[in-house]
């Protein structure tokens, strides 16, 4: 009998068909048998799973998650602080801009350019007060008063960067006087002659 079975199986050892009465082999046979499936039912299950709404992800409370929450709070705090800082910095700059109608008007545009102190001097008899107005101080009558140093001489020292400036003196608040020692500006749009000052930076090429 064994020889017959061997012939039926082709001589390749144990096979479910060989010993159907063996319970273990029977179980193996059953388990190895392909499971019958309904293709349409399987597709329906997949589609149903897809249609289900996605539940929010629940983060379990653990040391690692609290660490990541701490990171996110740190980032939010940093961003909030930086926004507050930026607003404060902008306000500071704006306030500086508002007060920049004095000499700092030049400094606004030439932060890194070295400044040179230029002395404005006017000799004017019987003047009560003298100021200088020009493109370096926003033509502000109150920005740059000259100081009386004796006799009829008035002076003011103003830091300026290299460039070309136009200006004039204002005596007693209303009398416009060009600098007698400086060339005149050809552009006279308002009927009062301006003087020209050219400032050269030290070591300019």
């Amino acid at each position, binding site marked *: 009998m064994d020889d017959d079975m061997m012939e039926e199986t082709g001589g390749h050892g144990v096979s479910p068909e060989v010993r159907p009465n063996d319970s273990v082999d029977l179980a193996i046979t059953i388990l190895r048998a392909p499971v019958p499936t309904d293709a349409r039912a399987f597709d329906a299950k997949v589609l149903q799973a897809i249609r289900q709404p996605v539940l929010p992800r629940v983060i379990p409370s653990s*040391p690692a998650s609290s*660490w990541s929450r*701490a*990171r996110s709070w*740190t*980032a939010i705090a*940093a*961003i909030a*602080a*930086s*926004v507050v*800082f*930026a607003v404060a*910095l*902008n306000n500071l*700059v*704006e306030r500086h*801009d*508002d007060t*920049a*109608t004095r000499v700092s*008007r030049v400094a*606004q*545009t030439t932060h890194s350019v070295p400044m040179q102190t230029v002395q404005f001097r006017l000799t004017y008899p019987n003047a009560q007060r003298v100021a200088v*107005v020009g*493109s370096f101080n*926003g*033509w*502000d*009558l109150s920005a740059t008063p000259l100081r009386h140093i004796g006799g009829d001489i008035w002076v003011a020292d103003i830091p300026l960067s*290299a*460039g*070309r400036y*136009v200006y004039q003196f204002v005596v007693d608040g209303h009398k*416009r006087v060009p600098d007698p020692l400086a*060339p*005149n*500006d*050809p*552009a006279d*749009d*308002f*009927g*009062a002659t*301006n003087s*020209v000052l*050219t400032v*050269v*930076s*030290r*070591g*300019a*090429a």
Partner: protein
Amino acid sequence: MRMLRAGCRFGAVPRIVGAFAFAICAARVGFAQRPASMSQLDGRVSPTLRVQVAAIADSVAALGLPVAPLVDKTLEGASKGADDRRILGAVRVLAADLGVARRALGVSSSGEELTAAVAALRSGVPSSTLTDMRHSLPQRSLVVPLSVLSSLIIQGTPVPAAAMAVVTYTRHGDDSHLLVFGNEVARYIASGVAPIQAITSVDALMGTSVSSYSDHPPAPTRRPKP
């Protein structure tokens, strides 16, 4: 765990520093993009004039021209008591002159150069002479040369002679050298010396290798690009 938390605290530092660096950059960009100096007009001129000047400034800025000279001209007019109509007219003319100056000097010219070029144009320098100067001195700022040129011409020096002298002195020395030359020529002219003679005399005193000045404009070192 302790190391992990320490690492967390340590990792937050560069994050905060980076955020503050970003904030500083943002603030600086905001400052840079703020209109050049239009805020200077607040309280100095009427609201109507401010709006009109701002409209011109916007157009000028769109063309890549500087706005600051327009603001300065407005403030000058207000300081001198000119009425709004006159100020606005001066601002319009200046805007047009800035365009002419930019066309003569090229798009790479600075605002200061354009302002000096406008003064030169108004003193009688042809725009072609400005173009020749730009191409004769391509690597130099023309602020001081144009300022000295304007002064020489206002004092009666013929344009070709003044332009040649300025270009020659700019090539042979620095701006200080040129300014001393201009001041000395002005002193000679003020004392009654004829402008050409004043240039020749100062040239001889300063030892520059240019011995004579003709009425021909300076030859450009290379042909100007359109």
